[in-house]
């Protein structure tokens, strides 16, 4: 059973990843091209007209965009499938489609939305290459801790409902508690890199496009995985019906 969820997650993730690549190509790449042009202009000014040779052309990197979003979609989709196998009996939603969309929404908040408030995506040339190690560790620490905070909120909400707490009061308490924990995380972790004199409009356009790319990926995983699960359930029911008939 777990293997079926894993396979479904890999498939849904690959398609959702390619869809998010399509969004990134049309919405994100124009800002990306302008950022790369700015980077090259400033590098040329510093190196006195000397042009640095790139390993891949911009065209090849745009093919690489689909490679990166497609493969990371498939891997996070696979992880989503395993998580779904674990959470399926523990989520109270009525259908697998509703469960899948709920779980994908929770993961999107923990993996993309909350981290983006503290460490929003940066275009090329923002951030000192010397500090990439520390920035990568801080970023993944925030992703892990945000996911953990959402998991804890869900667990506590479950326990409070079992105790018969009023629904409105419970949701309010969980919401306030989650905000307090997230603010504490933001204060505890080191601040992100300065954007320097990078044009502000271009910077925020790029950041919104990056958040949109992740939103498309998680919406895609939630909906596609849900539909694949519903289809598998229907086929199982039909087979069970045949067995009864014969």
């Amino acid at each position: 059973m777990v293997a079926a969820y894993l396979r479904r997650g890999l498939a849904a993730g690959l398609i959702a990843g390619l869809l998010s690549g399509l969004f990134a190509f049309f919405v994100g790449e124009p800002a990306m091209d302008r950022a790369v042009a700015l980077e090259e202009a400033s590098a040329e000014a510093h190196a006195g007209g000397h042009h640095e040779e790139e390993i891949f052309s911009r065209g090849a990197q745009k093919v690489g965009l689909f490679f990166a979003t497609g493969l990371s979609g498939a891997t996070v989709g696979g992880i989503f499938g395993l998580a779904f196998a674990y959470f399926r009996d523990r989520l109270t939603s009525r259908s697998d489609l509703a469960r899948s969309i709920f779980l994908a929404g929770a993961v999107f908040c923990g993996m993309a939305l909350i981290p983006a408030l503290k460490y929003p995506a940066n275009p090329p040339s923002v951030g000192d290459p010397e500090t990439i190690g520390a920035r990568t560790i801080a970023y993944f620490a925030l992703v892990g801790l945000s996911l953990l905070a959402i998991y804890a909120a869900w667990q506590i909400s479950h326990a409070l409902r079992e105790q018969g707490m009023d629904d409105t009061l419970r949701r309010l308490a969980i919401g306030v508690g989650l905000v307090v924990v997230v603010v504490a995380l933001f204060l505890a972790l080191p601040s992100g890199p300065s954007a320097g004199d990078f044009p502000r409009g271009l910077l925020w356009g790029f950041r919104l496009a990056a958040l949109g790319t992740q939103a498309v990926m998680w919406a895609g995983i939630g909906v596609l995985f849900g539909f694949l699960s519903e289809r598998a359930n229907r086929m199982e029911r039909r087979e069970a019906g045949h067995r009864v008939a014969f």
Partner: protein
Amino acid sequence: MEVIVEKRLAQQASTTLPVWGWTALALLLLALFMILSASGTLLAPVLGDTSGIFNYLHEFAHDGRHLLGVPCH
């Protein structure tokens, strides 16, 4: 009484991940790190000179990494 039976059923029905599931999870996380973050500069302190090959992966996946919000360089 009904509530107790329901709770017991729910506990029995809960799936736990088999050992291979945890192994798959670890491999998928490693793959995700390779696609999103591995680069020569990042891995040089761990792998030394051989980390240079990851620069090709870094440059090819460059646009995707930036647009998926991961620190790239």
